[in-house]
């Protein structure tokens, strides 16, 4: 195998450059911290670090940035699981089951599962990047606006399955999120919609809403009764999951990693979409789907493997075609160019040795992430032992500063506060917050790509069924959306014959 030989040469070159190894570990550690802090995403971390890499040699600089990228995607899960603060948008999916596991006293196993799954998903994606890059690069070119629209609709169809106790309330939350997602500049004409004249609303305030709905709402809820502490139920407990437990999750991790890689390859789709899609597929294939949302390790494993699987996929199109898969790789594209490297088909030919040294370094980054992650979890878990009277103010202070950091805007803090109040009442009356976040991620993508596809097809709606990938994704989306409703309807019919009556669209199953 030509690639294996090149990789071995890369390993040898890297071993002779201890500074690059050290800087990649520094990058991973910084990435974990940045990912864990609300409001700071991997994109921001890479952008902040970029100027520091100018004076470094290409391998050291690019590996440090890769380390921040990988660590940033993983780091969001730590605070999502421990405190229900999703450090990154992808971690909002992890928080659904991760925080429930913490409330059950299984925070350690949840964190360990997240770390192992992130590692496996990330490693799988790097191996695919190394060995299948030229084969898969063409797949990205098959994705035009209509396929991206179908992918967004597929993502939105998940709303029915993450609706919790009531499908109708989940759908209401989802469509409210879609309506909020239309706030800002019209994606085609640039006309400001529902902004009330505020320039701060020209972009959908997605991260402030997410921080408010998840973290601030939970903090406000804990103020209802300050005497109730997280206490023993929140003890970290065992970190590495028992082999028998994790063995049963390997199928979920494999499937989610593949989904993450495929989604990562698609331009415009990132780890947040991968995490939600992987979660839904894990739930669909599970023998106990009713446990999802109530603290299921499979949910955590799926989200993390999917999100980190995205990393290699996003790098694949960036390196082979010069097309960044997401915002982070767009910044990395700039970093490569600054180092005098031109991403594209010629990169592998002209700088093969350097590229495979980078690949070896990326594997090292993921191994480093596993070691640093597992090693630091016991320390990070200590925050659960803090008294609630200190922990809640710290969470709220982090929410405030994290929200401000996104755009250096006090206006965003106001949005976060409003979302926090709304989230508190949503929790109270069982309106799930996840569909709102999902809709905020997918809504703009769906609208922009639908309208682009419509313009490209000259106003004809044929693209909805004449393009194979679009047709398949839309069909699966419709089935995903309708299946929970049909299941509930059949259960209602069975119940009605036994004398029980229940309304349509109401679901606890």
């Amino acid at each position, binding site marked *: 195998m030509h690639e294996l030989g090149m990789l071995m040469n890369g390993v040898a070159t890297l071993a002779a450059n201890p500074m690059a190894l050290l800087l990649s570990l520094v990058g991973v550690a910084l990435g974990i911290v940045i990912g864990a802090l609300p409001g700071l995403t991997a994109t921001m971390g890479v952008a902040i670090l970029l100027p520091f890499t100018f004076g470094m040699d290409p391998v050291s600089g690019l590996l440090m940035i890769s380390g921040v990228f990988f660590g940033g995607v993983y780091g969001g899960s730590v605070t999502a699981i421990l405190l229900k603060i999703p450090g990154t948008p992808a971690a909002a999916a992890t928080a659904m089951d991760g925080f429930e596991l913490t409330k059950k006293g299984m925070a350690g196993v949840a964190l360990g599962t997240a770390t192992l799954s992130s590692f496996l998903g990330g490693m799988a994606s790097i191996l695919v990047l190394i060995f299948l890059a030229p084969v898969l690069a063409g797949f990205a070119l098959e994705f035009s606006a209509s396929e991206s629209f179908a992918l967004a609709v597929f993502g939105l169809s998940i709303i029915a399955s993450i609706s919790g106790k009531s499908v*109708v309330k989940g759908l209401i939350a989802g469509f409210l999120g879609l309506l909020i997602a239309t706030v800002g500049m019209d994606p085609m004409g640039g006309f400001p919609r529902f902004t009330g004249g505020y320039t701060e609303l020209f972009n959908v305030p997605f991260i402030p809403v997410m921080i408010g709905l998840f973290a601030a709402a939970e903090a406000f*809820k804990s103020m*209802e009764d300050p005497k109730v502490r997280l206490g023993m139920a929140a003890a970290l407990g065992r970190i590495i999951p028992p082999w028998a437990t994790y063995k049963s999750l390997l199928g979920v991790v494999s499937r989610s990693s593949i989904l993450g890689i495929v989604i990562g390859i698609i331009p415009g789709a990132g780890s947040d979409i991968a995490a939600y899609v992987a979660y839904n597929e894990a739930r669909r294939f599970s023998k106990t789907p009713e446990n999802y949302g109530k603290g299921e390790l499979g949910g955590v494993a799926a989200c993390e493997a999917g999100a980190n699987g995205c990393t290699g996929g996003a790098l694949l199109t960036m390196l082979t075609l010069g097309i960044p898969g997401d915002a982070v790789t767009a910044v990395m594209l700039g970093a490569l160019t600054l180092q005098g490297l031109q991403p594209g088909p010629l990169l592998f030919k002209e700088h093969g040795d350097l590229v495979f040294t980078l690949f070896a370094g990326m594997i090292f980054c993921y191994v480093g992430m596993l070691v640093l992650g597992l090693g630091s979890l016991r320390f990070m878990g200590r925050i659960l032992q803090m008294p609630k009277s200190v922990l809640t103010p710290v969470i*709220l202070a982090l929410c405030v500063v994290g929200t401000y950091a996104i755009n250096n805007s006090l206006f965003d803090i106001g949005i976060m*506060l409003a979302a926090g109040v709304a989230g508190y009442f949503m929790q109270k009356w069982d309106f799930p917050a996840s569909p709102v976040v999902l809709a905020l991620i997918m809504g703009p993508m769906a*609208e922009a790509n639908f309208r682009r596809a419509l313009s490209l097809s000259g106003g004809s709606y044929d693209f909805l069924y004449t393009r194979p990938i679009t047709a398949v994704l839309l069909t699966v989306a419709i089935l995903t959306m309708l299946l929970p409703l049909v299941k509930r309807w059949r259960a209602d019919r069975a119940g009605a014959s036994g004398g029980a009556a229940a309304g349509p669209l109401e679901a606890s199953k």
Partner: protein
Amino acid sequence: MSNAPVQGGGAGAPLSTKIANLVIAVVLIAVAAAAIASTGDFPKTMLAADVGPARFPIIHASVLIVLCLILIANTLRMPTIADDTPPVGVAGYAGVALGILATAACLYAMEYVGYAVATVVYMAALMWLMGQRSPLWNPVIAVVVTAVIYFTFQSALQVPLPVGSLFE
């Protein structure tokens, strides 16, 4: 309230949940209707093949109205059951309200006195609100936590935090 067996219809819900369902549904219908009404001011698209800026908001708002009507119908026909969850009580809701007000006050104050001062007072006040009433430890913890956050964001991550118009 929140742990009732099925919310929104079917097996029944406590009276407070039913009232909440109805109020929320009505509020959301009003919001959606207002959104549809304001799309009337959106300009027509210049592209013949485009659906224009109003189409998607109208679709989302219309579906939202239909779903809220379904929620209202289900809520009205569901039986009322006893609430088996422990009540939060006036003190509990007062705590939440004060926490929200403190956050709003912190946001307001930050513009004038800057991030550091506003956050120290905010954190100390929240700790006091949550039952930690130590005159020594509250300010110490608040200052230390604020200093760590300030250093992390301002110095390490190069995020400029508000200085406050009084100190500019």
